[in-house]
């Protein structure tokens, strides 16, 4: 029998437990409070006119073009950065030997991921906008976001590939499959959820990024001709060569300039839209995964 003595450890345990619970609860409260606040202000602003109309300096107007621009820049950036990131991840995972060159690449990716986004925006401006003559355009914005996005996407993809059971690859190799076939046919199907989690994280960053796109994708949302589907014509919504203000930049701009009467209403409305976009994107990806899992079974 252990005699009940000074109950220091037991009490300490209780205190720590209470503290940990408190911390977790405050994080939850923070997120819920934030969402409630933004949704409380913003949701009433959402109507068909707000979602589709173009912005107006006198009456405020809607964010239709910005919404489309945000979606477009998301797709364009992912299309550019996914092959690059996946290629680098596969190289690091499969072919790279542990030497100074591989280490250098890893260090470079880490430095890249810790650069302030405004610096990357400046580089994007000097290189893509000025030097390459892409101008303020979706293309310049996407390329800049690609630089921003590459470290995160590469490291999540590499970690995803590494999370597969190494014995699976060995078994594939023993069956005479090439390294490439092992990755495509065995490892990637196995780690698809982890790969897509990386994409979801990146998508959040792309949709919400402001500093890096102000001076690359531009701050103007010119009127678009929705009947013009020629991607080479800058009046067409599909053109990657037109200047394109995103939702995040729009929020920043109307608050910075303060010329529009209903700044608060529009920025909270746009903020809610941003959050909804991210939630919808995540739901779409995880829903697709779930469907695939179900059809296989």
């Amino acid at each position, binding site marked *: 029998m252990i005699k009940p003595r000074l109950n220091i450890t037991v009490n300490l345990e209780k205190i720590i437990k209470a503290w940990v619970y408190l911390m977790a609860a405050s994080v939850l409260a923070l997120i819920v409070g934030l969402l409630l606040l933004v949704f409380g202000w913003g949701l009433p602003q959402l109507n068909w006119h707000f979602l589709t109309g173009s912005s107006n300096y006198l009456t405020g107007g809607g964010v239709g073009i910005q919404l489309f621009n945000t979606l477009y820049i998301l797709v364009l950036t992912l299309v550019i950065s996914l092959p690059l990131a996946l290629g680098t991840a596969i190289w690091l995972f499969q072919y790279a*030997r542990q030497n100074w060159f591989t280490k250098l690449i890893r260090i470079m990716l880490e430095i890249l991921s810790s650069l302030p986004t405004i610096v990357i925006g400046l580089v994007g401006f000097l290189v893509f906008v000025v030097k390459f003559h892409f101008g303020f355009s979706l293309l310049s914005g996407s390329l800049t976001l690609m630089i921003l996005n590459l470290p995160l996407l590469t490291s999540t993809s590499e970690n995803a590939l590494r999370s597969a*059971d190494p*014995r*699976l690859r*060995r*078994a*594939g*190799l*023993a*069956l*005479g*499959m*090439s390294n490439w*076939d092992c990755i495509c*046919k*065995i490892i990637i*199907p*196995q780690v698809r959820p982890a790969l897509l989690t990386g994409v979801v994280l990146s998508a959040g960053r792309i949709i919400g990024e402001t500093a890096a796109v102000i001076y690359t994708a531009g701050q103007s949302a010119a009127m678009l001709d929705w009947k013009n589907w020629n991607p080479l014509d800058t009046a067409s919504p599909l053109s990657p060569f037109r200047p394109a203000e995103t939702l995040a930049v729009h929020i920043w701009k109307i608050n910075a300039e303060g010329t529009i009467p209903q700044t608060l209403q529009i920025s909270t409305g746009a903020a809610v839209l941003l959050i909804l976009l991210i939630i919808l994107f995540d739901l779409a990806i995880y829903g697709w995964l779930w469907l695939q899992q179900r059809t*296989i*079974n």
Partner: protein
Amino acid sequence: MSQAILKTEHLNVAADRPILKNVTIAFRSAAITAVIGPSGSGKTTLLRAFNRLNEDHLSTSGRVLFQGINIYDPRVDCFRLRMKIGMLPSQPIIFPISLKANLMLAPRVNMKVSRQNLAMDIEQSLRQVCLWDKLQHQLTNKQFKLSTKDQQLFCLARALLLHPQILLLDEPTALLDPAATLQFEKILLKLRSHLTIIIVTHNLQQAARIADDTAFLQHGKLIEFAQTRELFTRPQQAATDQYLTKKLILK
């Protein structure tokens, strides 16, 4: 004695220190050869040297001749080689897809065999390992539950589907109970008629039961290689005698 299908000449494999030292050995075709020896003697490394599956950081010198061709010649396609020289690890690995997809994966990807042609092959190779009756109705099912024995037999069928000429087995029965081990051995004895089998085993009784020839490896050196009966009854080397005696007494 039938002809040697696979032989090594002065094979050395080294990491930061040597793992295999100057191994010269020739394997008879259509026979079962057992490789025995204490843990860490290089048995698995030797096996992997035969289909170039050793890790990249291991350096290999010397020659491994498969049907007269040095497989370490840079012109040899090691992926094609691994189809001719199949391998089964000690732990059965089944890819998390349906059983049928498991069987079809390598032939479809490597040789572009059509599904129709494969259907016959699949039945044949599953029959060879006595799994056809049990599995034929759940081949497309992704949620399968197989015993360890059935998993190992299934992996054997998957390897056989590529029609290898040599089969390398790395302690294939290490995880099986005695009855399952005997069944596995029976299947190997049936396969021997058209297949060269090299089996690494810790189980001396197993070597004695099924192997035509046995090689004894110690500290990376080939100590003795002879017909199994010879090696077990009249070992020529003191080290072999010592190892056999110790193992058999401990049993």
